[in-house]
Structures are given as structure tokens and as C-alpha cells.
């Protein structure tokens, strides 16, 4: 099948229109309802004391001085909550024999990372709570920290948990991998380090719990209010029907708020104990220590190829750092990557193995891209190595192997069926915008004139899997929940429309995009639609927002519910117009008989449904409809990102000179929002390549506890981006959409590092461990120089 790729043009309907966002009004005027803004009568503030040790036994906690402080209502240690706090759940036990240690929300006997909660104070205001915290006396008996993953797997290593430091081993294989590597003319093996990242949404986490009788309302800065409600019920034993969870305006998540957090449990239990509303809001340094981290994988990747560049096989062996405990989907993150190492390429065989490892560090979980950035980095880096080995242009070796647009749908070696794509089109457009050939010429000129500032060109032809996810497949992967999404359309008597969605936006603009989908389907004005979300009382069902799933699954549910509304309305219109329903056409928000004549607008029908005077026999007086959609497949956005980086070989300074991103995210609901997602995604990927790293010292102290140490880049640190699109619709959902939330992050990290290495390869450098800081780049250059002229050596290159 040939998939259709169109260049986008101005749309006739609502879909594809660059609508300005409905959300902005409250956000640019300061009328927001961040969780920390919530105030309630009698509200008290909770502060948490956290472990200063990476690993220690708790021998005594003395709260007496804290309890005696002025303004202090209560203080609790882990032992005080032990009988009711349960254990934090992990919903993705990836293997039958996975080690799943108990994870008390507040440590009772032992702390396992710096930042583990040990005790809490509840006081009249946050200053009094902080004062009281300082008076708590805890005796610790230090235990040896476990920090290095390889050392942790040694049988003589100290243990994080009694059951040992190996959490699980998960494998995936297809094809004869031994045959692929046996006698292969080219075999390349590389080790890459996915450094630990701290997601760093601008809004720190915050939880408020208001107990009223035996019912609880919880506000939380979360991406997943519905999941929090279910898990809170399971952990605390409070009936799900007695819990209402609200995610008000949420200031970014990037996966870090795809979590059910210990602090949610503690806040609810403490509110129940003190019988008053309790608020906990973390500081940034607390957030860096105790909100989950991302990445932290050691990757060994081997590729076997023929001399003409054709890939024969790929083998991947990972160590994935779980940290001290298993977070909600932590063990599954590398699995999301397992299906993506083969990327857009055809090959004969593939094998993947991941070993999850416990260490005494902050637990890890999803961070923007979640497994796919790691996979894409490794494959796109080694594709450049392959190109170098074969003396080919990096785009040429990719094209030789990628799935051609006429080959879709294509079942990959990892077992996924990519429904559509056009890598040729995206790459051609990117090359043109980038002026690829011109930059290649400049690169050679700089080398020949001995310019100390080298130019490098980085390529990343990525794909990813979005639209999490077909429930059946999630079940096969041992994920505990489904991947469906819910929407409900309520047509009000005056013709205005309320859309209830189970997705939970935290910056993505669902209020705008879902309004467009609804306005387009129902033919009502965009302004007449209101989107409701993020409150389990208002939107009772949902699987929330993560993994670039919302438009693909949630948007489809909105669309599907709209279609049901139209069918209900059709029956009423037929009665009113005295015409057979099947002869009515619905266009522009009105029904008309195909032969012409009278018409009825959806608003008129809405009122007719409300007054219910003249409905068809047996019809309920309502147009309201809902839909729960379980996707048939993932969606597979792709694109070609090209980065030109100047590397000053005297200082190690890297400057991104130009960055071109051509993304194919299928049909676009709102190009403004799509472009914004791509921009932000690229920025986070560049941040991994150049700036960010969560660092521990030898004792297990996190050194990057502030934004002065953990370098989230500013406007001055980032380049301008050129973005464009090709549009190859997804064939597995009616909107043709693919998702865009993570694409930029997945694509940009390898594009940037490939550019740096491309600039420095003539010096004999083939890897620099991220982040590629000036110091690391400079050291790599110095080290390569000290090895002498690379051309004089057989195997040029420093690892």
C-alpha cells in the first residue's frame, strides 16, 4: 500500500486550524488554580522530613520537640502510619519473577535513598512546619550505599532490598540473531550512557486533602487523577466512591506527574488523623530529590551489516536503574524502548535484553519519551558509526535500510505493525530546509583550512510509538490496566456543548483541541464548546494523559461520541422534517433532506430534545452520548531532524547553529499546538545532549538538588528551530492523528550528539558521554590529541 503524504494547506473545517488557545485567558492573567493556590477553611500545612542518608537503618525518631513547637498540630513518623499506609504499588510487573519489594510511603525501619520520607509535621503555616521539622531527632545507623549498577549486580554487593539488587530480566527476540552476526562483514558494538535526568516541570508537586466525614477530596498536581483515585483507594482501603481526585491547572509534567506518589498517601492519612484539610507543597530541592527521575540506563548495542550497508541484525543489552523502589510504571519504561531500537529500519534479526537494577538512589520512572528516547539515541548513534565504517553518508545508510513508503503497513522485527509513514518525504524536506549539501561543503572547507571551530551535521530519522495503547497488548506485556479512553458529549438545551474527557491536560491544550474536534464534527461554533476534565466527579472515567496518547485515543473518543450525538439528532431531525433519517444529510451543523428543502440545525434539535414534545416513539429525550475507545494499534509519528553544531576545539564549546525538524504526526488538529509541542520537545532533548544530569556523590548524596546545579536551559542556552511537517495520516484512527508530545525529545538528543561527533570525528573521537559540556568535549579533544595523529593509527577513536 502506498501511504498518502500531503503538504498541509489551510483547512476548510475546524480541524487543522491554528486556533488560539482557550486555556490562555486564565493562565496569562494569574487567575489560575494551581494546587498550591487552594485555600480552605482550617487548612494546615504539612512538611516532610527526608533522609539525609542513601541507606541507613532508622533506630529512633523523636518527635516530642516538634510536637511542642508553637502552631504545630501533629507530627508523625513512619512507625505511626505503618498500620495504615500500605505499600506504594507498581502496576507494571514486567516478568513473573520480578522482585517487587515493599515500598512504604513513609520509611519505617530503613531509608533507601536521600530524600526518602521519614517523618512529617502538620502546622498552622508553612514556616511553623519548617521550624518544627528542624527539631525532629532521628538516629540512623548508616548502611553501605549501592550506586553503581554493574557493581550492584555482583553477588557480594551490599543489598538495597533483602531479595537482592536484580529486579528483573526481560527479553525480546525475533529472527536468528546468531546467523545475522555470524560472518557479518561489518559488526559494530558501542556502549552508550543514558544519564539520569530530573524531569523538572516548573510547578513542583503539591497535594491538598480535605476530609469531610468519611469522604475525601484530593487536589493534586498530577497527570493522572483517575489512576490516583483507584490506587489511593487500593492502598488506603478508603472506598473509591468516597474519593474525589482533582487535577486543577497543572504546571507541566513530562512524565514526572504520571505517578502515584507517596506524598498523596501521606497527605490523605494525615488529613484523616487531624480531621482538617492538609496541604503539602514541595520545594524545588525536595522535588529534585524525591520526585522520580528518568533515563539512567547503560546501553550496549551491536549491529551487524553487509558491506553495502544493509542491516542484518541488532542486539541490545541494557542495565536500567530502578532506583530504590519500583514506581508506578518504572520497570516497564525500558520495554517501551525495546520495540523502538529497530526504529524505521528493516533487518533480519533482533534481540533485546534488559536487566532492572535496584540502587540506593531516587526511583526512576517515565520522563518525556519514556524508553523511546533511549532507544532512538542508541540506534541513531550507531547508524552514524555504521555510515562511517562504510564510508557512506549517514542519510544514505539510513535510506538503504528504512521501510519505504510503499511498504506500509509494515510489521517490524520487534513485532509492531507500523500503519503508515513516509521517511523519504520527511527527509527530503528536511534536507532542503537545512541546506544539507551546502553545510557539508562548509564542513570540508573548515577542515581543510584548519579552522579551530569545526562544523558537524547530526542526523536523526526517528519514529516512536504513541497512542498508548491497545489494552490487549498491554495485558500481554503484564501492564495491570487498559489503554482505552473515555469522552462524553453533553448537548445543552441552548445548543452549547460540554465535552467531558478522561484525558488530563497539563499544558497540552486539550480544551482548545477537543473543542476543535467537537466543533468540526457537530458543526457548532468553536466558542460554543467547553471542555471539562481533570476531576473525577466531573469526568468520572479516564486513563489520563501520558505517552502522547491523548489526541490519538482521547481525541478519537471525543470524535466517536460526537458521531453518536449526530445519530441521535438524526432521528429527531427526521421526525421534525418528516423525512426518512437515512435521506438526511448532516453538513455544517444542520440536517437537510438530500433533495433540499427545510433544514434543522443541531441547536434546534438540541432544544427539541430538551422540550421533548415531538420525539420519535421510544426515544429518550437527550442527545448526550459517550464513547470509550480502545485503540486497535499504536500510532507511529516519525520525522527527520537535522542539527548543525559548531564545536570550538580550543574551548570545547558547542554552539547549535541551525536546527531543522520535519515531523510527520499525521493529521493535525491545531498546527499552533503541534509546533509548540515540537519546540518544547526539541528543547528537552537538547537539554539531555548538552546540559542536564542528575549526579550523586560516592555516598549517594544527590548533588544536583537545585536549578543552579541541575541545568535546565534558559532562552539564552537554546537555539531557534526551523520546524515543518509532512502529513501521512494514521490509518488506524478516524482522525488520522498520531500524537506529538514526545517526538521532539526523542528526535533531538541523537541529532545534537551526532552533530558534535560528526564535527570531531576527524580528530578520532567517536563518543562523548552526555551531557556534552564544554569540559567533556574539551577533554575528549585533548585526550584524542594526546594519542597523536589519528590518521597514523589503525583504529582511530577514543571511546
Amino acid at each position, binding site marked *: 500500500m502506498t501511504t498518502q503524504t500531503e503538504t498541509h494547506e489551510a483547512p476548510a473545517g475546524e480541524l487543522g486550524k491554528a486556533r*488560539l488557545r482557550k486555556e*490562555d485567558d486564565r493562565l*496569562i492573567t494569574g487567575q489560575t488554580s494551581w494546587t498550591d493556590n487552594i485555600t480552605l477553611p482550617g487548612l494546615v500545612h504539612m512538611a516532610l522530613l527526608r533522609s539525609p542518608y542513601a541507606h541507613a537503618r532508622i533506630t529512633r525518631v523523636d518527635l516530642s520537640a516538634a510536637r511542642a513547637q508553637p502552631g504545630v498540630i501533629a507530627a508523625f513518623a513512619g512507625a505511626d502510619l505503618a498500620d495504615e499506609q500500605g505499600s506504594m504499588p507498581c502496576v507494571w510487573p514486567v516478568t513473573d519473577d520480578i522482585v517487587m519489594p515493599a515500598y512504604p510511603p513513609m520509611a519505617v525501619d530503613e531509608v533507601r535513598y536521600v530524600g526518602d520520607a521519614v517523618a512529617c509535621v502538620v502546622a498552622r503555616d508553612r514556616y511553623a512546619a519548617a521550624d518544627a521539622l528542624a527539631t525532629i531527632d532521628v538516629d540512623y545507623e548508616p548502611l553501605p550505599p549501592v550506586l553503581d549498577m554493574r557493581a550492584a549486580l555482583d553477588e557480594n554487593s551490599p543489598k538495597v532490598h533483602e531479595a537482592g539488587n536484580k529486579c528483573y530480566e526481560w527479553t525480546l527476540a525475533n529472527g536468528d540473531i546468531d546467523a545475522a552476526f555470524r560472518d557479518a562483514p561489518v559488526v559494530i558494538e558501542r556502549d552508550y550512557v543514558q544519564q539520569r535526568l530530573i524531569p523538572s516541570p516548573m510547578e513542583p508537586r503539591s497535594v491538598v486533602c480535605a476530609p469531610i466525614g468519611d469522604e475525601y477530596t484530593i487536589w493534586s498536581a498530577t497527570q493522572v487523577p483517575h489512576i490516583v483515585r483507584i490506587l489511593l483507594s487500593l492502598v488506603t482501603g478508603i472506598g473509591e466512591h468516597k474519593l474525589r481526585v482533582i487535577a486543577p491547572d497543572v504546571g*507541566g509534567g513530562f512524565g514526572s506527574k504520571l505517578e502515584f506518589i507517596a506524598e498523596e498517601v501521606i497527605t490523605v492519612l494525615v488529613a484523616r488523623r487531624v480531621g482538617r484539610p492538609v496541604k503539602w507543597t514541595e520545594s*524545588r530541592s525536595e522535588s529534585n530529590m524525591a520526585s522520580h527521575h528518568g533515563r539512567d540506563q547503560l546501553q550496549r548495542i551491536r549491529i551487524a551489516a553487509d558491506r553495502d550497508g544493509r542491516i542484518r541484525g541488532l542486539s541490545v543489552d541494557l542495565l536500567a536503574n530502578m532506583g530504590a523502589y519500583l514506581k508506578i510504571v518504572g520497570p516497564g519504561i525500558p520495554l517501551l524502548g525495546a520495540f523502538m531500537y529497530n526504529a524505521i529500519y528493516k533487518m533480519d534479526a533482533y534481540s533485546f535484553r534488559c536487566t532492572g537494577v535496584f540502587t540506593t538512589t531516587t526511583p526512576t520512572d517515565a520522563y518525556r519519551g519514556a524508553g523511546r528516547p533511549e532507544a532512538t539515541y542508541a540506534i541513531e548513534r550507531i547508524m552514524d558509526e555504521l555510515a562511517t565504517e562504510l564510508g557512506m553518508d549517514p542519510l544514505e545508510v539510513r535510506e538503504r535500510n528504512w521501510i519505504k513508503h510503499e511498504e506500509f503497513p509494515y510489521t517490524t522485527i520487534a513485532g509492531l505493525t507500523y500503519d503508515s509513514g513516509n521517511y523519504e518525504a520527511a527527509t527530503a524536506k528536511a534536507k532542503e530546509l537545512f541546506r544539507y549539501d551546502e553545510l557539508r561543503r562548509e564542513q570540508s572547507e573548515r577542515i581543510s583550512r584548519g579552522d579551530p571551530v569545526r562544523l558537524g551535521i547530526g542526523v536523526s530519522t526517528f519514529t516512536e510509538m504513541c497512542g498508548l495503547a491497545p489494552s490487549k497488548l498491554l495485558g500481554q506485556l503484564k501492564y495491570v490496566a487498559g489503554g482505552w479512553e473515555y469522552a462524553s458529549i453533553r448537548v445543552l438545551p441552548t445548543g452549547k456543548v460540554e465535552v467531558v474527557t478522561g484525558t488530563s491536560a497539563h*499544558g497540552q491544550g486539550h480544551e482548545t483541541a477537543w473543542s476543535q474536534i467537537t466543533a468540526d464534527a457537530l458543526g457548532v461554533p468553536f466558542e460554543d464548546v467547553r471542555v471539562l476534565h481533570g476531576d473525577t466527579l466531573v469526568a468520572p472515567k479516564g486513563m489520563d494523559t501520558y505517552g502522547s496518547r491523548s489526541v490519538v485515543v482521547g481525541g478519537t473518543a471525543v470524535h466517536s461520541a460526537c458521531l453518536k450525538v449526530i445519530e441521535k439528532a438524526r432521528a429527531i431531525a427526521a421526525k421534525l422534517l418528516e423525512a426518512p433519517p437515512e435521506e438526511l444529510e448532516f453538513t455544517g451543523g444542520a440536517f437537510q433532506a438530500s433533495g433540499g428543502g427545510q433544514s434543522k440545525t443541531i441547536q434546534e434539535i438540541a432544544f427539541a430534545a430538551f422540550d421533548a414534545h415531538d420525539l420519535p416513539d421510544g426515544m429518550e429525550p437527550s442527545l448526550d452520548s459517550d464513547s470509550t475507545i480502545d485503540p486497535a494499534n499504536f500510532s507511529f509519528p516519525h520525522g527527520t531532524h537535522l542539527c548543525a553544531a559548531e564545536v570550538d576545539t580550543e574551548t570545547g564549546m558547542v554552539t547549535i547553529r541551525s536546527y531543522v525538524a520535519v515531523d510527520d504526526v499525521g493529521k493535525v488538529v491545531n498546527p499552533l499546538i503541534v509546533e509548540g509541542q515540537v519546540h518544547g520537545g526539541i528543547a528537552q532533548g537538547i537539554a539531555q545532549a548538552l546540559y542536564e544530569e542528575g549526579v550523586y556523590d560516592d555516598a549517594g548524596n544527590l548533588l544536583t538538588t537545585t*536549578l543552579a546545579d541541575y541545568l535546565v536551559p*534558559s532562552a539564552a542556552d537554546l537555539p531557534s528551530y526551523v520546524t515543518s511537517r509532512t502529513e501521512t495520516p494514521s490509518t488506524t484512527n478516524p482522525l488520522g492523528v498520531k500524537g506529538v508530545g514526545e517526538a521532539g525529545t526523542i528526535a533531538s538528543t541523537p541529532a545534537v550528539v551526532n552533530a558534535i561527533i560528526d564535527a570531531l570525528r576527524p580528530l578520532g573521537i567517536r563518543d562523548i558521554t552526555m551531557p556534552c559540556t564544554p569540559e567533556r568535549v574539551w577533554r575528549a579533544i585533548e585526550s584524542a590529541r594526546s594519542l597523536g595523529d589519528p590518521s597514523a593509527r589503525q583504529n582511530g577513536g577514543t571511546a
Partner: protein
Amino acid sequence: MAEITVTVDGVSYVDHVEPRMLLVHYLREVVGKTGTPIGCDTSNCGACTVLMDGASVKSCSVLAVQADGAQITTIEGMANGEWHPLQRAFHEEHALQCGYCTPGMIMAAADLLKENPHPSNQEIRDGLEGNLCRCTGYENIVRAVRRAAEAGVSE
């Protein structure tokens, strides 16, 4: 407790505060101006930026007592019957996603444009270096500030 008189968004307040109270906590919890959020505790992120006597300050790094006698403008005081040109430009250029950094970004940009009414893109980037955004990659923030500058925001 110290007595302070602070004008916030045109309204005068007299309060008794602890000498250690941060201006941002005073604004949020005493005056009830929650439009100014808190993003960090080391004055790196700039989310809490407000104007103090016309100059931008990070209100997490100013004590409430230091604001005694000062005029404070927060994001809530920027619109004057209609949106401030920066608010309009941020909306029109899609310069916000989650919106958490936006109040501080707009206040810092207001100060930047007062100092330099016609900044280049690089001057905008350098001028906003103290304000972090995790969503937008800054591209549209730069465009928005330029747009506001072209609309003559400083006049």
C-alpha cells in the same frame, strides 16, 4: 512582627509580618495574590518575578519587609481594562503551554522592554535568561516579546 505598608496592584495593604517572610509568600498567602507562583527556592527559575517600583525582582529573593513602602505589580495587575500587550502577544504567539512560568516571564519581559524597547532576538534571549520555561523551548516566547515590542509596549 514588623508592620509594613505595601501597594500591590494599586491597592494599599498594611500588615504585620515575620521579618523572615518572603515577599512571594506575603503576596500569595497574606494578600491572596496567587497569580504569582513559586517554582524554586534558589532564585533560578524566575516564576515568581514581579515588578517592585517598576523593576523586576524575584519575589522569592525579597523579604516582605524590604517591600515596605514599595509599589508591587504582579501579573494580576497587568491588564488595565484590556490585556497588556505582552499578555496579548503571549496568547497570539502561543508562548505558553502549562503557563506556570508565564506570570514571571511576562513581568521579566515587561522590565526588559522598558530597558530596551526594541531588542533583537538574542537580546530577548539574554534578557530572559533568569526565567525558565520547561514547555515551549522559548521559540514562541521570543516571538511574543518581539511582537509586543513591535506593538510599542514600552510606550
